[in-house]
């Protein structure tokens, strides 16, 4: 006991140092980006974290052209549809994986894992050719389909872990209460797995939102090009002007939805809704 009280202040200090290091490690690049987005072009390279002359010019600049606005629209559409499709189908697949015994289950889980691990870059050329011949190239669906393919395994893995946590007896109770398997799923299991569904949706959304490889390879115009790819095409007003300020401003803007999402749903993600189902 005495030893514990003696070491407590020192332990606290050690933890504080560790926390600061981790925070700095994560936050410095973000702060740097934020700082760049507020600097005027002349001071971009001054190496100071604090902008000496503040400007909104970078932000107003990117919204003045159509390129960024259209890209933002494309990003939202692609990420939202990808998330919805992956979560809905992922939930059903994950439920089957967690609860049912069916032929080919191991193969399904194995394939899902394989897809999740597959290096995406090696698929780009075949995808490019397939989408060209199917007319999907440079369309929303041309991005949504490959994104779903990589989002689904993630959704299945995350959700089946959540479903496994829900006591079996709840479905048995629902079945005896007169529910069809579908009703048991939609009225008992899905509400209980809501934190899991939200978590999964956020994870899939982030993956789709951040996708650069598909976006840069499978689009060619502003018709479907998403923000991460569009940023790469940013140029200054003239060939000689440095676009870094605009790039930083665009990067900050696409970070906002993710931050909002996570802050907003943090409590739900953490909440354990299943308490009280069984004796606990």
């Amino acid at each position, binding site marked *: 006991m005495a030893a514990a009280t003696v070491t407590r202040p020192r332990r606290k200090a050690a933890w504080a140092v560790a926390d600061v290091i981790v925070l700095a490690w994560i936050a410095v690049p973000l702060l740097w980006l934020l700082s760049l987005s507020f600097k005027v072009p002349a001071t971009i390279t001054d190496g100071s974290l604090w902008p000496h002359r503040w400007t909104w010019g970078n932000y107003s600049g990117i919204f003045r052209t159509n390129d960024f606005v259209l890209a933002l629209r494309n990003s939202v559409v692609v990420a939202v549809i990808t998330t919805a499709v992956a979560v809905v189908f992922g939930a059903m697949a994950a439920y089957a994986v967690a609860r049912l015994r069916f032929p080919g289950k191991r193969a399904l889980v194995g394939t899902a894992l394989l897809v999740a691990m597959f290096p995406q870059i090696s698929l780009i050329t075949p995808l490019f050719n397939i989408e060209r011949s199917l007319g999907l190239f440079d369309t929303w669906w041309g991005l949504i389909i490959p994104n779903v393919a990589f989002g689904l395994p993630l959704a299945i893995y995350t959700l089946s872990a959540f479903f496994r946590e829900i*006591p079996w*007896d*709840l479905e*048995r*109770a*629902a*079945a*005896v*209460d*007169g*529910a*069809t398997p579908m*009703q048991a799923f939609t*009225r*008992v299991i899905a*509400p*209980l797995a809501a934190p899991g569904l939200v978590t999964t949706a956020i994870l899939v959304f982030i993956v789709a939102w951040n996708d650069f490889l598909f976006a840069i390879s499978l689009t060619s115009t502003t018709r479907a090009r998403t923000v991460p790819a569009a940023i790469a095409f940013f140029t200054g007003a003239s060939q000689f002007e440095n676009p870094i300020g605009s790039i930083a401003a665009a990067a900050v803007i696409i970070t906002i939805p993710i931050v909002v999402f996570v802050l907003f749903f943090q409590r739900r993600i953490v909440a354990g*809704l*299943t*308490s*009280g*189902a*069984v*004796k606990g």
Partner: protein
Amino acid sequence: MAGIVLEHITKRFPDGALAVEDFNLEIADGEFVILVGPSGCGKSTTLNMIAGLEDITSGELRIGDRVVNDLAPKDRDIAMVFQNYALYPHMTVRDNMAFALKLAHTPKDEVRRKVEEAAGILDLTPHLDRKPANLSGGQRQRVAMGRAIVRDPQAFLMDEPLSNLDAKLRVQMRTEVSRLQRRLGTTTVYVTHDQTEAMTLGDRVAVMRAGRLQQVGAPQELYDHPVNLFVAGFIGSPAMNFLPAAFENGRLRSALGDIEVHDEVRRAIEGRGSGGDVIMGIRPEHFEDASLLPEDKRRQGAVFREKVDLVESMGSDKYVFFTVSGGRATSRELEELAADAGSGDAPFAGDQLVARFDAASTAARGQEVDVWIDTSRIHVFDPGTGENLSLRRPGSTRAA
């Protein structure tokens, strides 16, 4: 409401394990039947087959006049209470109870009326708008019961509904369950591993062991006339005493001395033709402190002298423990019972005996006392088959 008939019900799991074998039981309309046995005996599997939560491998199951083997649980019109209650945690007590009715598209007013009626019966009215997480164990248990009774189903199936409650609440709820069942008159199948619950609750008790039905009968009948060692050892608390004995010249020779047996029993022992070794079973209350008995009563039984190991006074009676020489009775059934002792009372198959004496007995630790045995109540079992050779049973059924 309806009766339930199980005919030659067998359950084999996909891995080949045989959980229930050739189970036959006819449950009358309105009857309260208990399935009891040690863990792993197949009682819950049997209940799940009645509910439709497990497929039936072979045999026929009827609820009312319908064969329900292939019906989904929702089409069987039965309600079930689970051991862990399985309340829907995201719904209030009211919604939990109304769930089944809503699924059945019952009109709103009727749902409301039925839920409130059930809540009234179960003292849940003040808690209707709370969530299960905010209820005590006993309240959750009552919600689980309420969810079953609002349905007014053909039958209640209960899977160890009281085993998660503490001892005091369990006794209280036991009475409540019994009263509720009488009041509603709904056919009920109740699974438990607790022989006290089985004895106190049921109209009839079905004892299972290793997937097979051992004996079905009224609680008293099982207690007085167990068909085999397993039932004898399982029913009763403290459990029956078992001693190895040799049958010679019409007498049972054991560590307790020689005991005369009835002609019928003698014929049964001689008739089986597998030597003279048997297992003798005596319930604790069939012993008495000989000094408390009048001479003529003493002469109706046998008396032996033994040193007292321990006395436990219950106020109303005294449990007196003895160690007798002569080794322990061995049989597979007794070993199973001993292995399951965690969830029940281990029968005294060792060299220790327990006797229930009148509270007036002055027996004390270390003292030698004369112990009287009511020889007319001794059971004699075949050590090989476990069969009760001394059985004179009126109309008790035994699964083949």
